[in-house]
Structure formats: C-alpha cells, structure tokens
C-alpha cells in the first residue's frame, strides 16, 4: 500500500480545491519518493566513491559525521538528494499556503467556531516574548515559522498551515489525526505504568495539539493543558480541539518557565519539542518539569534518539535536518546526555531511562477505528526502513523519569 493514512478533514482544517489537493499530494509523493527511492542509495554512494575521494584528498578515512558531510557534499548523487529533499519541503508549505490564502476568512471563522465549542481555557498573555531558538529561523522551513512576524502573529493561519503541512511532511504515517506520538505515549502509560491514571496533564510545545488531544480521549477525566510559545498555534489548537468536541486548555507559555504552581501536574509530556529548544533552554525545561510535578509524577519526552546509539553515517544522514531544514538544535540535541540533564534537574537516577513506545497506529487499525485500516498500518509499520526516513516502523523513542515520592 503506497498511500496509507488520509488526513481526517475536521472542521478547522483549510479546504483545498482539486488542483490544490493534487499539488499537496504531489509534495507528499515527492517526499516519499526521496525517502524510499533516493535515500537508500546514499549508503552505497558513500562507500563506493565518496570515502575514496575523501581519502585521496585528506590521506585518511572519514572519522565522524562531520568528515562524512565533507566527503558527501561534492557528490552529485548527494546533491540531487539534498536539493530535491529541500525542494519537496518548500513545495509542501507552498501548496498549503495556496489553500489558506484562497479561503483565509473561512480558515479564521472555522477556528473561531471551534473555539466557541471548547470549554477549556485559551490563555494568550499580552507581553509574551517568543524565545530566540524559535524565532531566529523559520523551523523546518515553514514560511513565517510557528509564531509569524508582525500581523501574522495575530491569527490562526500559521496553525492551519502547520496542521495540514505536518500531515504531508509525515506522509500520513502518524495516522489520520497526526497524533500517533501522543497516542503511543498514552498507550505506553496505560501498559507500562501499572494502571496509573494521571489527573492533571501538561503537554509542552504542543503546537496545534496533535499529540495533546489523545490524552483527553484516553484520560477523559483529566485536566489537560497544552502550552506553546507560538500564539497562532495555540489559538488554532483551541479551535481544533473544539472541532473534535474536546474540552482542552491551551496557553501561550514557555516550557522553561510556566505560570503554573509547584506540583500542579502529575504527568508532563512533550512530543518532538526538545530538539526545537536550545542548549541553554533544555536544562531549564527539565528543571521546570521537576518543579511542576507532584511527588511520584512522571515526565515523558518523545523525541529523537541520541547520536551515541548510532553509527556515524546514520548520524550524518539525520544531521541533514540541521543544515538543510532550519533545525538548528537537531544535531546538538542528540549529542547531549539527557539522562544527566534529568538527574541534574532532580529526578532520581534509577527512574530515568530511554524506552520505546510502540506505534499506536497498529492498535487502532486492529480496532477498525475511523480512518484506520489494517493494511495502512501494516504498510507503515512493516516497510523497509532507512535511517533518515520519517518515523521508524516500530515505535517512538521516549525519555522517561519519575519524581521522587513525598
């Protein structure tokens, strides 16, 4: 099966004309082709000719991912790979902007209508400062970035752009609601934490709430907060939750220093947030998690596995995001000792570990949930996987730590 999960068209999502949809579909197809048709050739090209050239020129073999980058960047095969990968990313955002620009008033109105249905709070402070690690570059080349510039910061359109764009970026692999990371961590909690049911949950760096909403679905009695530094994402998230019929609180806050009181939450999660912070911010985020957790509470971050678990060539492939996709902290974050950071933040070392949360798409397909099919789930989970592709079939890497009991 080639074209697996189709995005669920909830009421807040921008509509697309047939030609806009076809352009979006092409950007997604191009991404899939780059990953499955071109990416696997990089290994053989590196072995067959790039190493030899590097050795000829330097008199030694490439030692680490930085040497491998020097060896590969002059190679025409790598140049085509990297160029087309970048172009696919640019076409992807452009194809969604077409839809939003054509129907901007409807996009605004839809989000507003969703927000009216969401009984959760929407908190946007007047004097919020977006941290430089988010504002310095437009992360993953999304024009305007998460928060936008000038008037773009006022509305919801960058949230709408992210919602549709991320579906295309992930090629549907995270399910019809782009929420497989959240679902997978929920499942992990249900299975691995001995029937524990969290009562107050904080999702840090939630953007439009893709991964936030499964917590409301799977822990319906819990009070849930999604926070993010970008106002357009938060506004859209609130409307999107309403469109799903869920009451979830959203606030523009910085995970380094939130406005919640000590010990307010018993579960704090994040999904692909840490790699978009910074070397200075990440220790503060861990310290803030420790402060916000009640005794015995859990912190779970689903993000990228550290580089020390991988060979240098795989590191090089993954590090392309740092150089070519406006992800400045992507490589450096993987070099950090996250276990030490969690220990320094106050978590007892024996509670800190990396683990894998199996992808939930398989389970929902087995239950024949709406928008899921077994065939699509199998196609995502069982495909030939090359490092550098989006989403390994097996599961998501999580860092987990538990605050000491009182």
């Amino acid at each position: 099966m080639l074209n697996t999960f189709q995005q669920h068209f909830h009421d807040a999502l921008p509509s697309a004309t047939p030609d806009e949809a076809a352009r979006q579909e092409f950007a997604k197809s191009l991404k899939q082709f780059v990953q499955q048709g071109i990416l696997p050739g990089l290994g053989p090209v590196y072995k067959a000719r790039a190493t030899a050239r590097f050795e000829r020129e330097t008199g030694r073999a490439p030692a680490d991912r930085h040497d491998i980058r020097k060896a590969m960047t002059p190679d025409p095969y790598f140049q085509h790979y990297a160029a087309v990968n970048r172009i696919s990313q640019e076409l992807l955002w452009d194809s969604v902007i077409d839809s939003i620009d054509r129907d901007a008033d409807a996009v605004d109105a839809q989000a507003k209508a969703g927000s009216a249905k969401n009984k959760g709070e929407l908190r946007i402070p007047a004097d919020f400062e977006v941290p430089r690690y988010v504002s310095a570059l437009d992360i993953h080349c999304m024009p305007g970035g998460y928060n936008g510039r000038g008037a773009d910061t006022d509305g919801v359109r960058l949230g709408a752009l992210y919602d549709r764009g991320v579906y295309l970026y992930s090629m549907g692999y995270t399910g019809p609601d782009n929420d497989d990371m959240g679902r997978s961590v929920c499942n992990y909690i249900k299975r691995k934490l001995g029937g524990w049911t969290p009562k107050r949950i904080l999702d840090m760096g939630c953007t439009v709430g893709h991964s936030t909403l499964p917590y409301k679905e799977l822990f319906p009695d819990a009070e849930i907060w999604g926070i993010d530094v970008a106002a357009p994402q938060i506004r859209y998230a609130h409307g999107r939750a309403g469109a799903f019929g869920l009451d979830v609180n959203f606030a523009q806050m910085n995970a380094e220093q939130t406005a919640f009181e000590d010990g307010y939450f018993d579960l704090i999660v994040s999904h692909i947030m840490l790699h978009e912070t910074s070397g200075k911010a990440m220790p503060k985020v861990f310290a803030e998690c420790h402060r916000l957790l009640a005794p015995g509470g859990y912190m779970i971050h689903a993000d990228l596995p550290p580089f020390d678990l991988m060979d240098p060539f795989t590191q090089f492939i993954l590090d392309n995001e740092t150089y070519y996709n406006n992800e400045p902290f992507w490589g450096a974050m993987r070099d950090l000792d996250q276990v030490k950071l969690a220990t320094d933040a106050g978590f007892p070392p024996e509670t800190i570990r990396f683990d894998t949360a199996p992808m939930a798409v398989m389970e929902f397909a087995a239950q024949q949930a709406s928008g899921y099919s077994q065939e699509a789930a199998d196609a995502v989970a069982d495909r030939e996987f090359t490092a550098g592709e989006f989403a390994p079939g097996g599961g998501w890497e999580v860092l987990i730590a538990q605050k000491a009991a009182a």
Partner: protein
Amino acid sequence: MTETMNRNAKGKRPHFYETPALDQMMSMIMVLASEVSVLADHVDSIERVAATNGLDLRAGIAALVLDQTALETREARRQAMLDRMFYLMRKEAAEAAAAETGEGYSSVIAEIAVG
C-alpha cells in the same frame, strides 16, 4: 492581519550544487513535475466523473482509432512542442550557419557606438 501569507522561510537557503543556477533549475523542474502530476490527476478525475455518469471515457479512449487527419494534427502538435523545447539548439545551429560569434557581437556594439 496581512492579506496573504508569507512564502519565504527565514534562514539562509543552502546551495546544493557548485553552480547556484542549478539549484534554481532543479526547483523549476520539480514545480513542472508537480504541474504535470496535477494534470494527470485531473485527467484521472475527468474519467472517473464521466464513468459515474455512465460515460466510460477510459474504454472509449482505449478503443479510439485515429483517422489520418487526427494523426496529422497530433504529429504537428508534438513536433511543434519539440521545436519549442529545443529552441536553443535551433538557435545554436543557426549561429553556426551564419558564423555568428561573441567577438562579432562585441564588434557590432563597438561599431554602433562610434559617433
């Protein structure tokens, strides 16, 4: 609120090729590929919509036998398209035939400038 969204991502775009123009060429080729794909999807849609309305265009197309007029028309359109596509080669051959050179061009500029 701005009228239209920003389309330029902040952050210096890397060059992937030694010749920067090639980066632009590749992006144009990919955009053209996208437009071809859009058209192919559209033709597919036309056939499917027609089929749901009882008109089997796909079978009709498969069974279509082109008469000589149609063959001529199509051939002319294909040749014209190729002519447009290879206009620079046509120009190059014409220059060779007329012995036009860069030096010749420069000398014309110099000659015309003389008061």
